[in-house]
Structures are given as structure tokens and as C-alpha cells.
């Protein structure tokens, strides 16, 4: 539910940067949503695409979202493991990153602790 306020923050940030760089138009926005950031990708995208209509410089901006694979630390074998999200379940998995269904590829333990992945970053802007 807080995706709309985050999208609003993003647009304000973009508008300030566009003004700073004397750009009239923003073409592309690259944002990283960490797998444990608690942000639902679809809702964030939806919010951004609604809010951008109200601001001329970002009206046609394309939002490109990067979703790094979630990393875990296995409590049994101590390894840091990266478990890619399965494409089919992207939406569900990104929303919950359910711990119970994941197993350590090295030792089979399900005691996997999320490691990092809480980042929400505006990486890059393409402006003119």
C-alpha cells in the first residue's frame, strides 16, 4: 500500500534532478527494488504510471525496474546463497519472499536468513 507514496517520492526526486540538469523531458528512469524491500513491483509501477501523467517532464518517462536475486545466509552451513526467483511465480514470490519453501542448495537446510536486499535506489535517469 505504501508503493504509491514511494512512487510519489520518486517523481519528486526526478523533477528536482531534471531541473538541476536543465532537462525538459525525462525519457527513462532506472530503479532497483531490493527483494526484501517490502515493495510490490506491480503496485509501484502502477503508482508511478498514474502519477507521472500529472507532471509534464516525466509524462512519457519509461520506468525500468531492476530486481536483484534474493540472497540468504544458511544458518546450518554458513554459506551465502542466492536463490533466483522462478519466473512464473515472480509476482507472488516478490511479495512475500517466503522463507519456508526455500532450501539451501548446498546442505538442504530450510534455515535461510534473508541477507541485505532492502535497497530502494534511483540508479539512473535519461533526460533531454
Amino acid at each position: 500500500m505504501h508503493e504509491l507514496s514511494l512512487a510519489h517520492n520518486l517523481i519528486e526526486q526526478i523533477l528536482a534532478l531534471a531541473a538541476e540538469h536543465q532537462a525538459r523531458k525525462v525519457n527513462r528512469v532506472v530503479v532497483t527494488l531490493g527483494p526484501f524491500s517490502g515493495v510490490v513491483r506491480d503496485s509501484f509501477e502502477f503508482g508511478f504510471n498514474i502519477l507521472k501523467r500529472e507532471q509534464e517532464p516525466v509524462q512519457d518517462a519509461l520506468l525500468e525496474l531492476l530486481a536483484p536475486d534474493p540472497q540468504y545466509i544458511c544458518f546450518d552451513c554458513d554459506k551465502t546463497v542466492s536463490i533466483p526467483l522462478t519466473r512464473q511465480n515472480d509476482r507472488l514470490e516478490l511479495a512475500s519472499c517466503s522463507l519456508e519453501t526455500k532450501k539451501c542448495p548446498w546442505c538442504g537446510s530450510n534455515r535461510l536468513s534473508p541477507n541485505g536486499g532492502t535497497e530502494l535506489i534511483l540508479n539512473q535517469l535519461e533526460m533531454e
Partner: protein
Amino acid sequence: MCDICGCQLHEHHHHDPKVVEVNRSLLEANQKQAEANRHYIEHMGAVAINLISSPGSGKTTLLERTIDELKESCGIGVIEGDIETERDADRIRAKGVPAVQLTTGGACHLDAPMVHGGLHVLEHLAKGRRLDLIFIENVGNLVCPATFDLGEHQRVVLLSSPEGSDKPAKYPATFKSADLVLITKSDLLPHFDFSVEEATSQVHLLKPELEIITLSATTGDGFLRWLTYLRRLLAQRLPHAH
């Protein structure tokens, strides 16, 4: 028409798009305000706690009993976050401590700018009385508030026994961000299939060693540990504030 060279070709552009590497957090503005809030709270000589939980898990009841136990020995102020109504702030005011109600009008979480406004009002309501302990009761929600630093010193997440011990596994971001977890309504444990062991192991999977206190604000069971935690926080405040 291109307004740089004046040529009539609609698609014509003279200026090339430029790519700017930004690499800044989306939460930058909130984070800045949160740091300022923390500084402001420390300047008052107080310590602030952000209480997060689902609706109905007992945040306000916890505060009522905490105020009864501590108000003689320290100055308490409360900022209440709710979508609507002044009900929670009224319950706190009935205990004789200053309370500010922030109604978000639909927003599912408090953010640092809202709390900044609340802190000013709270200081005004305190009328010169010293505030040692500021509780910020977040909007009842186990998802969204986790993302927003309010300028608190400690984040306390409540989990009540009727909610079920699977909640830390279902809402990892919130429990991982906690400095303390309270399992509330312990007097109801015999009536629900809540497993303190399951909740504890799930929380410790997210954050090993995190302190967990099981208590009941109704019977007072386990309350001493919570009060000890608060007294320890008060004792650890920055010395320059006194």
C-alpha cells in the same frame, strides 16, 4: 518544431539525451527528516520508540499500562498514528500525559515529516514539562511502516497471541527491522494455538539474538522485563541532554 534550430520536422531533436547516474535512495527525503527528528528528540533529552504491529494487537493497551507504571518516574509523551479518529490519543490523554493524534486520512504508515510536525505539537502540549520517553504508535499495519524511519531510537514490533505464531515468517521485513519483539496478550495463550517457540525461532532466523519479551498488559505478566528494557534505554541516553 524544434525550438533550438527552428526546423519544421516534428521528430527532429538537436539535443541528445543525456544519461545521469544518480544512485540515491528513494527514501532520501524521509531519511534526512528522520535524522533531523532524532536530533530534535535527543535535544529534548528524550528517547523515542516506534511501535509497529497489526491493528488490534494491543499497542494502546500496552501504552496505558506502561504510563501507569512509569509516569511518576519519567516524563512520557505519545504520538498516535491512525487513519481516522482521535480515539487512541483520547485514551492516552485520560492517563494524564500529552498525546498528539496524527490522522493520515488513508495513508497506511507514518513518515518522518508527519512525525516532525507531531513532535512540535507534543513539545507545545508538554508545556515546559520534560519529556524523557516518547512513544510513536504507528498505524496498525505489519507491512508498510517497516520502510520508514521516523527518527526513533528503538523499533518495537508487537505480535499478539491471537494473530498466530507464523507472522514473523509472513512479514519478514518488519520483524527483521525490529530492535525488540513483544509477544502480547500472553494471558490468552491457553486459548489459541500460538507457539512461542515457533515465533521465537522464526524471529531468530531473521535476526539472531533479537530480544523477545512475552507479556500481558492485562495481567501484568512479563511486564517487568519490558519496564526494565525501558529503564535501560532511559539510562543509556546521551549524557549531554541532561
